[in-house]
């Protein structure tokens, strides 16, 4: 391989786009060429330096609203806080008082929310995007959420109890960022969505069947939880029981 070829291909090597054969060729060349070896090193440093910075932009809220407003929408529905769960009445003043930015959906009913959650679950399974942070270590997954969300969801390792922690993911429900903690039971993925709510009272878990998936939801410590999976209802209930117990034992995760 010549340096000219290597100049192009070493980028594909850095990006993990080369097949094993070509990767070996580039590596062989680099082993014998100080110039290309130095170039590879610099490009790797550069890539790492860029990756270490937050180079992305967040779309302003008014842009999201503009786009949503431009789409055909159902009429005659009141705005209700769905992700804020069963919160009623004083929720708004509670939010103002505590500075909590609750997630407020403009939707018709809870069915819609359940459907969104199933959609997010399906997306996570099919888009090759199950986890943003892949780790079985709760001490890796939990800090990952910090700074990405208003509230860091509790991340509890339930591996010893039969539910393996896979990682975490930033997901979107109704266009809002929400934390998803991902578990596995045998081949079944469980997405646990967590959102803050101004309602601090405990609400016991209940299961509903939505489009062939089980959703188990509960509220605890000012957080709404939705566990969604194709796992059977009994095992999903076992999951939420163990999660709640562990959360109590951990002193609120």
């Amino acid at each position, binding site marked *: 391989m010549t340096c000219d070829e290597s100049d*192009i291909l070493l980028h594909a090597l850095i990006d993990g786009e080369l097949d094993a054969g070509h990767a070996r060729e580039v590596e062989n060349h680099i082993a014998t060429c100080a110039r290309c070896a130095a170039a590879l090193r610099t490009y790797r440093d550069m890539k790492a330096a860029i990756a270490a910075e937050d180079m992305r932009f967040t779309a302003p809220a008014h842009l999201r609203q503009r786009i949503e407003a431009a789409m055909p929408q159902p009429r005659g529905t009141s705005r209700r806080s769905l992700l804020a769960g069963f919160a009623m009445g004083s929720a708004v003043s509670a939010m103002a008082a505590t500075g909590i930015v609750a997630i407020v959906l403009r939707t018709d*009913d809870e069915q819609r929310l359940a459907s969104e959650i199933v959609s997010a679950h399906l997306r996570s399974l*099919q888009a090759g995007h199950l986890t943003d942070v892949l780790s079985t270590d709760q001490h890796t997954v939990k800090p990952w959420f910090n700074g990405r969300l208003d509230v860091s969801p509790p991340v509890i390792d339930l591996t010893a109890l039969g539910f393996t922690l896979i990682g975490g993911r930033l997901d979107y429900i109704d266009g809002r960022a929400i934390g998803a903690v991902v578990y596995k039971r045998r081949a079944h993925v469980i997405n646990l969505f967590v959102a803050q709510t101004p309602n601090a009272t405990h609400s016991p878990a209940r299961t509903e069947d939505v489009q062939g998936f089980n959703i188990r939801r509960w509220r605890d410590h000012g957080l709404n939880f939705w566990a969604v999976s194709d796992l059977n209802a009994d095992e999903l209930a076992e999951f939420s029981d163990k999660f709640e117990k562990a959360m109590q034992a951990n002193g609120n995760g």
Partner: protein
Amino acid sequence: MPGQRPAARAHPAANTTMLFGSPGDDQTKARRFRDAALPYLDDVYTVARYLLRDPADAEDAVQECYLRALKHFDTYRGPAIKPWLLAILRNVCHAEFTRRARSAATAIDDLPESGEATAPLWQETEDTPETQALQKRDANSIQRMIAALPEPFHETFVLREIQNLSYREIAEIVDAPVGTVMSRLARARAMLRSAWLAEEEPSR
């Protein structure tokens, strides 16, 4: 995106009336589109900010992109929605480039066809000591250096390094062979490296 989303359901709220008397299909379609496309709003907006280098223009482009995408959602066949959205966004941005070029003399952004011939803004790597180490830079100064890259190297670099798209996805978006993507990316990185090292000179 057949199979990716649960089949459209009848709207649960019986009291819902149709807006503008539009058929329920439109709402179902809009709903499916929202579910599929809105999660990528930040991605699309990020690329728009990089390509257009202007927040207000980026917002307009993103809105136009989503409206076009909704219009053509019926014909969308995958495979992934993000590259599809970004390809639409790119078309919108290029229309904006053309408009700018026509309306102003300062056409720093050009169409890729002519941009390919753009002279490098700085010396290529030959003069740079290979052993020189890169200093860490903050996001702002990296963004400034990226913004100085000429098209089409700039867009290729952004799609790869900011959006983490695969070469194949980038090739789809910019409508060029994968080999072209590779050589543009190599060029973009070489230019960026030179700029990065050149900026460090004064502090040494």
